[in-house]
């Protein structure tokens, strides 16, 4: 009876790519109909490979050394063509751009059933259902290329659902999306699971979000399945989480510390659960709240001592209007000081990238002025500005073309007429800061994605600019990758560079940035020290952002004296006093 209920049965699955990488080692897994399963693990652990095994893409389309068996809806994946399996397993991948290729939303959703020869009336019904369930009804005649990131991903889901699968496989569906897009996608998936009983098999890094929905969490490391259990169990196991380089929910990280001092039964994984726990502990007098010793309540505190610090970049009445009258930036006035570590946050379309492109000359103001190191940017070339303001772009693969890491770095330096004698030394220094010294002679595309990102940072560092901008260094990255990049940024900051980073990861930016600029629809909504900004959820809401989970927790418990600007576990713990002394 149990065997028949298993909608997915994986036995002793191993797979090695033709390049020699063994991606999966002896995986055994059974999933029941209607389960919501989340697969976690660092990049390279085998999550995508496992996903592609479920609908037969591996081994039918992607060849390699395949051992073991995978059954979906009692069909063995090696014995059926992909198009048969595709009617049982729908798949949605990371990048919305390459999954969508039809002229209209309607034809995109129809593509699958059309390929199967489904009669027209039936296809129309399926389209109606798929669009309803992904909340895209009414978008039929729209061009998919004008949709937002979140809408595009939902379209990819709708297209998968039109095949009428009973299982939905999603491979990091929100990694390229902003917070709204992420919420939209998770919400739709939750509906599909709870209302339509679809079995969900999703790989993700964002534990805070999935903690609410997942029935089961599976952890992969180096191709092996090292944990399989209920979310509270898995996240509660600190040594497991650390060894697999997972990012547990921030409230759970708090508990890792708290339970060293107070005994705790059930580990909370959501803000709600954590709130309940803390309230109980306070009521049971097991913990007491200490007032916060240093508070940052004034917005200008980050700009303290600024009359002693040099203004590196200044904008005066900056407007940027794209063709078609799109007002991307409206009257921006700000100053960037030497030694700042700034995080720029805001929803997609708020103007973050547009703003920073004015700092290195990729864009020039439509109205107003921008000054870099005192010079008006309209009077300086982009190449000249790049000597003072370096930028590591979102997509590292847009820059790499050389046959070795060393050559990549030499390229930029030669363009800036750096003398030959200095090249070697600068290259070595840059590679050492980012931790890629051992890859100096390697072919850039052989590096992992995370390493290629680090390479683009090295390219910038070698040019020795005073200001370094990191444009969304976190998309497509796992937990380890994003923290490594930020640690590099921290090192560079300590060496004297001014850092500006754009990101959607609130927890990350809360931990590293000293000053936050919040953009919403082209305007600056808030500009101040990190704690201050995150203590204003009312303003953050306007651009659909939420403070990090622990900050939210502190705000909910503010009646007990928790400081609403707490950002990290250390902050929170500094306010906790337990019995038997500190």
């Amino acid at each position, binding site marked *: 009876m149990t065997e028949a209920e298993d909608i997915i049965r994986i036995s002793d699955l191993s797979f090695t790519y033709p390049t020699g990488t063994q991606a999966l080692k002896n995986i055994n897994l059974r999933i029941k109909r209607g389960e919501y399963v989340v697969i976690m693990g660092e990049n390279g652990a085998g999550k995508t490979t496992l996903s*592609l095994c479920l609908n037969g893409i591996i081994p039918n389309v992607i060849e390699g050394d395949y051992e073991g068996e995978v059954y979906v809806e009692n069909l063995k994946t090696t014995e059926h063509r992909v198009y048969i399996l595709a009617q049982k397993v729908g*798949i949605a*991948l990371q990048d919305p751009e*390459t999954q969508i290729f039809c002229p209209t939303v309607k*034809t995109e959703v129809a593509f699958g059933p059309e*390929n199967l020869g489904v009669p027209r009336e039936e296809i129309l019904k399926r389209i109606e259902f798929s669009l309803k369930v992904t909340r895209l009804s009414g978008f039929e005649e729209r061009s998919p290329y004008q949709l937002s990131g979140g809408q595009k991903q939902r379209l990819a889901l709708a297209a998968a659902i039109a095949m009428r699968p009973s299982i939905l496989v999603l491979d990091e569906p929100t990694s390229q999306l902003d917070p709204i897009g992420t919420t939209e996608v998770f919400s739709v998936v939750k509906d599909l699971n709870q209302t339509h009983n679809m079995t969900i098999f999703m790989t993700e890094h964002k534990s805070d979000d999935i903690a609410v929905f997942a029935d089961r969490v599976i952890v992969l490391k180096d191709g092996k399945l090292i944990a399989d259990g209920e979310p509270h169990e898995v996240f509660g196991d600190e040594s497991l989480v650390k060894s697999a380089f997972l990012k547990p929910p921030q409230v759970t990280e708090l508990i890792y510390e708290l339970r060293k001092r107070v005994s705790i039964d059930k580990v909370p994984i959501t803000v709600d659960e954590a709130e309940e726990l803390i309230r109980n502990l306070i009521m049971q007098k097991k913990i007491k709240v200490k007032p916060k010793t240093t508070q940052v309540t004034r917005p200008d505190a980050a700009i303290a001592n600024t009359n002693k610090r040099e203004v590196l970049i200044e904008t005066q009445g900056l407007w940027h209007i794209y063709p078609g009258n799109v007002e991307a930036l409206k009257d921006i006035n700000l100053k960037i000081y030497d030694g700042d570590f700034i995080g720029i946050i805001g929803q997609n379309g708020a103007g973050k990238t547009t703003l920073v492109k004015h700092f290195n000359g990729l864009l020039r103001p439509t109205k107003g002025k921008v000054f870099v190191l005192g010079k008006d940017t309209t009077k300086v070339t*982009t190449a000249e500005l790049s000597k003072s303001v370096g930028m590591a772009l979102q997509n590292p693969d*847009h820059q790499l073309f050389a046959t070795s890491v060393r050559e990549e770095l030499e390229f930029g330096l030669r363009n800036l007429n750096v003398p030959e004698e200095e090249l070697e030394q600068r290259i070595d220094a840059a590679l050492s800061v980012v931790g890629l010294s051992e890859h100096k002679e390697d072919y850039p595309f052989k590096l992992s994605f995370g390493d290629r990102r680090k390479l683009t940072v090295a390219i910038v560092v070698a040019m020795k600019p005073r200001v370094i901008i990191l444009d969304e260094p976190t998309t497509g990255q796992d937990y380890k990758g994003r923290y490594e990049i930020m640690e590099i940024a921290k090192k560079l900051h300590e060496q004297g560079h001014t850092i500006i980073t754009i990101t959607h990861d609130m927890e990350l930016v809360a931990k590293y940035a000293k000053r936050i600029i919040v953009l919403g629809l082209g305007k600056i909504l808030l500009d101040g020290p990190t704690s201050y900004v995150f203590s204003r959820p009312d303003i953050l809401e306007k651009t659909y952002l939420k403070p990090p989970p622990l900050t939210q927790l502190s705000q909910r418990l503010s009646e007990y004296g928790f400081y609403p600007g707490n950002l990290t576990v250390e902050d929170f713990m500094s306010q906790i006093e337990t019995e038997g002394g500190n």
Partner: protein
Amino acid sequence: MSLGFMEYEAKDNIIHRMDPRTKLFFMLFILVGSIILRDLFSLALLVLFGLCWWVLARIPISKLKTLVMAIMGLAVLFTVAQGFFYFRGKTPIFYFLGYPFYFEGLIFGIAMSLKIIAIITSVPIMTMTTPTQKLIVALSKMRIPYSLIFILTTAMRFTPLIMATYSEIIEAQKIRGHDIDKMNLITRLRKAYIPIVTPLFISLLRSADELQISIESRAFGAVKKRSYVEEVKIRAVDALAIGVMAFLMFAMIYGVILWGTAIPQANPIPPWLPVPDWLREIAQWFVFPLPDWAKPP
């Protein structure tokens, strides 16, 4: 470098409502005409015919102007070259640096330019009035294999993406001091494009890989008889248009065989054909003897 002037714009008029196949036939008609016709008057009529479609499709004249301006340079160059070098040139109009510029060459040059103009202006009639999804169904009804149709539509889908990636790469390399806009021609040809083209190609190959996974996962090629959710239907207006063009095409070919021009030089109805007199009279109206200078070579 945007192809914006050729993209589909939704409107409601006779041309927009036509079946894509009719418009494809129109393009074929223009193509055949520009190949077989050689004299100025016939070609002028052909271009005029094409312009009627522009007017009916309510495409703004500004788009026509942009298109023609782009070709104008080439047309003028061609005409000038023919003016000086046309081997049948006899009548000089003026002299430049002692070299004669011939009238016959001028006429010939204009005629050739009209050929190019006719073909190029026929394309937007198709692209600006036909949504891609209708074109796909129309092509499938013409028994063109779906794989070929898919190649065409994927190319159309990816072209803007490739151009966007190209711009992004140019920007990305600019901030490394590699500014191709600021390089002179020689430097440009020698080394500007490798750092642009390499990442571009790699990103294309990657996209192709991912596209493959997407389409396989959605049963591409599963079934021989693929269904289509969009519909196209030949209606009265299409039958009429195709009928008229078919007749005109026949008339063109007939005329070129008999007189070298589409414009009848004698009564087109042959004497041995039994037709009523009133019909022969009507046919006579279309006879227009070409002046000597306008005769096809």
